[in-house]
């Protein structure tokens, strides 16, 4: 057990008397049995039956009422053929942390395993974090610890990670943020005999010069390779209550985006190249239950590895969503087209779904199909149909089953069934229970 694990265990033991008196318990258990038959031409038919248990527990209002404990993880066991190449069982602790929320200043302290989202950082760490709003619109967040390692030895992360974000807010008009991240001891090869540091700086902005207009985005800079890593900006217009429009610009420069990250063992993206994309969405709420959205995005890719990967591509489409009967009936229809650059394939995608949740019964149908411009393994189309039916045995206990059938270039027939038991308990009715 590592030091963080020991710390968590000690903290749990020390907190046991308080935990017993915790005023608020949330529990979510999802048990999934998947039944899948896979048939690949030239290979033996495979039957996989993995049973997976997801478990989440939240204990709130511990001790003085401001402390909470949050745990979430999963465990899988294969009951027939192996479902993955790694082994017949697996598991992961996604998070397990103590959180102390102060009554003022949105101040909080966290300790344990958790996800950090602060500007340039989106990291799962074993460590601590602190944040607070300061006077005059300023705020500060800091974190530090060890990045959670992947379970594959060849893709280890750094030995330690630290960073933070500071921001300034002008009420209703603007927020400016500066963030940084330093990850030390990142293994640069599978042998682990070459190590480097990962250093990113970020600037982010939210700007609302008028109540109908918002600009939201960030720029990340890699101070280890000395160059811009990413730009990502969204400009949104809301001229009326029923119409919305947005423009988006993204750019990623791979050398700086991935220098000294552990991703290079997979695709070596830090050899160079970039992707620039721009586009927009147009949304129209024709009536309260019916929404239409049109979207378009243009991509330009430059690759230093292979000129075959260079080119301009477009993706565009239409979505319609219909919501009726006080949101009990939710349905949608979508068409999208991806026109790849000359050396890439292209495809069209059509999807339709319908969900009806009466409170006691939950039923849904979902169909998706793709049509390729050029054949893939002598096939030019793929489809998947999913039918689902569920029954709430109790208000918090849902038993549901799904059956899916698909044909595609990879599988001549793919039949999948899922049996799911979901228990979602909370002491008090609050939030979306999500």
């Amino acid at each position, binding site marked *: 057990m590592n030091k963080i694990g020991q710390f968590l265990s000690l903290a749990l033991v020390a907190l046991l008397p308080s935990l017993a008196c915790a005023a608020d318990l949330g529990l979510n258990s999802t048990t999934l049995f998947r039944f899948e038959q896979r048939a690949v031409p030239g290979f033996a038919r495979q039957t996989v039956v993995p049973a997976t248990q997801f478990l989440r527990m939240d204990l709130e209002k511990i001790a003085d009422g401001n402390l909470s404990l949050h745990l979430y993880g999963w465990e899988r066991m294969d009951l027939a053929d192996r479902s993955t190449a*790694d082994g017949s069982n697996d598991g992961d602790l996604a998070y397990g942390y103590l959180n102390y929320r102060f009554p003022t200043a949105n101040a909080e302290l966290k300790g344990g395993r958790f996800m950090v989202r602060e500007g340039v950082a989106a990291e799962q760490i074993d460590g601590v974090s602190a944040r607070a709003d300061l006077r005059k619109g300023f705020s500060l967040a800091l974190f530090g610890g060890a990045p959670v390692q992947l379970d594959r030895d060849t893709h280890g992360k750094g030995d330690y990670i630290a960073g933070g974000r500071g921001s300034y807010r002008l009420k209703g008009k603007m927020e400016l943020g500066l963030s940084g991240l330093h990850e030390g001891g990142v293994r640069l090869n599978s042998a682990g005999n070459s190590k480097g540091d990962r250093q990113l700086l970020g600037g982010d902005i939210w700007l609302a010069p008028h109540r109908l207009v918002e600009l939201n985005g960030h720029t990340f800079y890699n101070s280890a390779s000395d160059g811009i890593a990413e730009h990502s900006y969204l400009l949104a217009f809301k001229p009326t209550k029923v119409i919305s429009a947005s423009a988006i610009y993204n750019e990623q420069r791979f050398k700086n*985006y991935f220098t000294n990250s552990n991703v290079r063992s997979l695709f070596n993206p830090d050899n160079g190249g970039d992707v620039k994309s721009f586009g927009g969405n147009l949304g129209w709420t024709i009536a309260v239950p019916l929404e239409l959205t049109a979207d378009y995005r243009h991509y330009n890719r430059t690759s230093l590895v292979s000129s075959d990967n260079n080119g301009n591509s477009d993706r565009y489409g239409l979505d319609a969503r219909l919501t009726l009967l*006080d949101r009990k009936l939710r349905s949608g229809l979508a068409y999208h087209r991806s026109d790849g650059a000359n050396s890439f*394939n292209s495809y069209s995608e059509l999807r339709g779904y319908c969900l009806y949740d009466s409170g006691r019964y939950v039923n849904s149908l979902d169909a998706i199909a793709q049509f390729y411009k050029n054949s*893939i393994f002598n096939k030019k189309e793929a489809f998947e149909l999913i039918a689902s039916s569920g029954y709430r045995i109790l208000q918090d206990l849902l038993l549901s089953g799904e059956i899916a059938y698909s044909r595609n270039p990879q599988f001549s027939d793919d039949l999948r069934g899922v049996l799911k038991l979901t228990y979602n308990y909370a002491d008090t009715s609050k939030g979306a229970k999500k």
Partner: protein
Amino acid sequence: MNGAKFCIFSMLAAAALAISACSLFSSEASLPAWHAEELGEGRPICAECHEDQIRGTLKPFASFNHSRDFIKNHRLYAAREAQLCASCHKSSFCNDCHANQLEIKPSIKLGNRPDRELIHRGDYLTLHKIDGKIDPGSCYKCHGRTNNDKCVVCHR
């Protein structure tokens, strides 16, 4: 300076730092840990009930309406408003798609929720060969640095 003096000096310095830091903190009440009322299923439109600005974020509620744009670009909001997200969503909600190690494709885990915007629906094993060439940056956000067990089966 001997050890005892150093300890006393350090403790005094820490106390002074703590006191001065406390005077810098905002005195405004924190966001509630949970949204006061239970929300129904579907995408919430915050501005349907709220007109003012959200305490702490100093932004209008309408900025957080769960429109299609908001959902597609939620990373821009989550990177600075994680506390606000947490007032309705448990971290496990994020883990349905974002995790160091994702056990099940989100659209299979949530096969009974076709109304949710989930990535990689249908035959994505085939589609990733096309989408990955058009915009590899979109893959690398989630795969490679984390959650790459499925990738390394073929990409070695």
